[in-house]
């Protein structure tokens, strides 16, 4: 099958959506399909052979911050050329509602279109006004995929219609087979994520830490991620600060080893998560997971069966749950075992097969993807060439 995938964010900037697309493309190529990924990229960026550059993303103020987006005449022309040259059986667009490459591709193409909704932006006033602009493009999508039940619900609420839920994929064996690191073992709690992003929840964990250390003084907290380390520990009493170790940015390999080594992996995120890939990675590595009870997290953890949950933003509840886990090796083994079994459904072999069956469903009896020549004002005034 000839598959075209549209990535909305710059290929040279690391991010969840980019990694998902990279892994999906490589998985599909491994199965013998022909895949081309259209992504924004600087001209100098070295790209894998299956990625086609859509030009540099332009920084513009959008939604209260500066976003790097692709739009305008040149980008639209590049999307058209890619559609023409690719002659795809199906195109798979990611994040079609962000005003960038995804929406452009939606607008410029006709034929079988699959779209994945990763994040669910809160409904803004401008979004309601933009609805009539979006709608004609979004109507062309033949199948919608949401990455979680939570993402699906917000999608239905904001745009109407429905979607199938296919979670993000993880290479489970990569995490399951890596060797643990001895220095990260022994009464350790792990945290991975941006230190200075409050939504990742490190402040909640820092608030809970004194209670945990009071009962189990030999506990260590290992923190991997970017941010200001001094500011992060500023809320802790001075004598407890040495119990926190900062590892900085870690490689994929070290991330897996860290997850494989810790006694408890804590995800105290306070919101803004639509999936929680890190929990899946932690479970793949066999780490007992303790997470805040966000909708998306509860979903990934099978409502608490594959990992423990605590009250969101509740440091006392977090401390109590962490102490319970740290003091109960049998429960940790049980979680390890259940997690590893549960996580199989997120492996690329399962996720990739689900996505392929979506492709096959929409291409059944449909013609191939082509550039839509009727888009724009010409169609409105009946000037389209048929």
């Amino acid at each position: 099958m000839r598959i075209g995938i549209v990535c909305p964010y710059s290929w040279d900037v690391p991010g969840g959506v980019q990694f998902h697309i990279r892994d999906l493309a490589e998985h599909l190529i491994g199965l013998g399909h022909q895949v081309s990924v259209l992504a924004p990229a600087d001209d100098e960026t070295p790209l894998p052979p299956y990625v086609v550059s859509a030009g540099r993303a332009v920084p513009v103020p959008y939604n209260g911050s500066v976003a790097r987006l692709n739009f305008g005449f040149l980008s639209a022309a590049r999307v058209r050329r890619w559609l023409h040259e690719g002659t795809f059986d199906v195109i798979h667009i990611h994040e079609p509602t962000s005003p960038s490459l995804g929406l452009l591709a939606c607008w410029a193409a006709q034929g079988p279109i699959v779209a994945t909704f990763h994040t669910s932006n809160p409904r803004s006033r401008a979004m309601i006004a933009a609805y009539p602009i979006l709608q004609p493009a979004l109507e062309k999508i033949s199948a919608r995929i949401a990455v979680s039940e939570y993402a699906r619900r917000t999608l239905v609420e904001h745009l109407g219609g429905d979607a199938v839920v296919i979670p993000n994929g993880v290479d489970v064996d990569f995490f399951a087979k890596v060797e643990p690191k001895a220095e990260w073992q022994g009464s350790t709690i792990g945290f991975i994520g941006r230190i200075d992003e409050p939504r990742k929840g490190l402040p909640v964990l820092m608030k809970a830490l004194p209670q945990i250390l009071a009962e189990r003084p030999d506990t260590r907290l290992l923190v991997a991620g970017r941010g200001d380390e001094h500011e992060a520990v500023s809320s802790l009493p001075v004598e407890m600060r040495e119990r926190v170790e900062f590892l900085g940015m870690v490689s994929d390999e070290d991330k897996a080893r860290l997850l494989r080594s810790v006694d408890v992996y804590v995800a105290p995120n306070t919101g803004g998560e639509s999936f929680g890939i890190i929990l899946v990675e932690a479970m793949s590595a066999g780490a007992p997971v303790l997470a805040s009870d966000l909708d998306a997290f509860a979903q990934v953890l099978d409502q608490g069966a594959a990992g423990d949950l605590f009250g969101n933003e509740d440091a006392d509840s977090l401390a109590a749950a962490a102490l319970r886990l740290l003091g109960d090796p049998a429960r940790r083994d049980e979680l390890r075992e259940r997690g590893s079994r549960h996580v199989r459904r997120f492996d690329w072999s399962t996720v990739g097969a689900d996505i392929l069956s979506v492709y096959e469903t929409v291409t059944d009896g449909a013609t191939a993807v082509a550039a839509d020549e009727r888009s724009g004002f010409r169609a409105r005034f009946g000037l389209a060439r048929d």
Partner: protein
Amino acid sequence: MALFAVGLYLSWTAGRLDRLHARIDAARAALDAQLLRRASVAQELATSGVLDPAASIVLYEAAHAARQAEEEHREVAESELSQALRAIFGEVQQVEVVREAPGGDEAATELAAAVRRVPMARRFHNDAVRAARALRRHRKVRWFRLAGHAPFPMAFEMDDEPPVALADRATT
């Protein structure tokens, strides 16, 4: 006699200041009109379906924010609209596409006029502000409170660089 001369001089200065304040008010009204005009044309273009949907949404949001902005966020919102306009109308072909649409020629011309007039109106306004501020800082004005309760005039600072493709068009 001397007292009378001083009084006459102060009264003349107060009159001068009053004229400057009136000039600022007029310049500000003109600037507001140009900014509003620019935002309106931008919003019209954004909802017209002539642009691609991604550009439409970016432009719509910027124009919407500029029109709705509170006074203290106005400069930022208008600057962001300038940036959005530059990003979208950075290429001549995009302007061509707009001009080809029915009624698009008028819209493009009106937008070109608005993006050219905003910097002008802003310069005239800030020029009047500068003159009034210089006079109001003077001893005689401060000691005799000649400015009364009129607020200290503030310049309007924003990024008003017009998009290349539109600015070039307007001058030919």
